[in-house]
């Protein structure tokens, strides 16, 4: 039973398109995150939601908009995709103050 699942696993799209990545966790955690891993494998936090409330927004362009319909889901919508958005995006969840973060398998986004 997958703890943190992301869909799709691979996404290839053209510049200028809008796309979404979905994330779901079944761990009962109250906090979810999006991390970006760039082409040099550097991992950086993008957003964090706690109980559906945005608590971290790390200077990410406005084209990126996270949405958390409930505690178990955190989706990432990206408008007007650019070549530089090509990366692997990881979703993660944790129970704030109580547990380590669990990561999804990642979504490899390629913008052509």
């Amino acid at each position: 039973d997958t703890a943190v699942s992301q869909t799709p696993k691979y996404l290839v799209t053209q510049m200028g398109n809008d796309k979404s990545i979905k994330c779901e966790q079944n761990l009962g955690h109250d906090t979810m995150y999006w991390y970006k891993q760039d082409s040099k494998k550097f991992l950086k936090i993008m957003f964090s939601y706690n109980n559906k409330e945005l608590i971290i927004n790390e200077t990410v362009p406005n084209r990126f908009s996270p949405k958390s319909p409930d505690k178990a889901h955190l989706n990432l919508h990206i408008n007007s995709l650019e070549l530089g958005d090509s990366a692997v995006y990881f979703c993660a969840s944790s129970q704030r103050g109580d547990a380590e973060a669990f990561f999804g398998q990642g979504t490899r986004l390629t913008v052509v």
Partner: protein
Amino acid sequence: AQSVTQPDIHITVSEGASLELRCNYSYGATPYLFWYVQSPGQGLQLLLKYFSGDTLVQGIKGFEAEFKRSQSSFNLRKPSVHWSDAAEYFCAESMEYGNKLVFGAGTILRVKS
């Protein structure tokens, strides 16, 4: 600002040899420290974590790490490396357990047979 440094970008060891991957953290108070492993095309798997108590922590797959406050280090070790350990290893810290992680740049481990 928080930062995590992994000084070695690549490390190559022979199968059966011992391994040490270095990690230095910046957070002044007691940090929460983690080591993750990422195999090619895979997600991140937690190897071990430290947040208090015994400074030598044991993890999965035979890995251990030692927290040294005086050196701001949390180095990962394994006494005998297996070919399946070839992967990229990330050290990370958090100011609060269950809060966002700040990652190092990663160390790629290659294992020679």
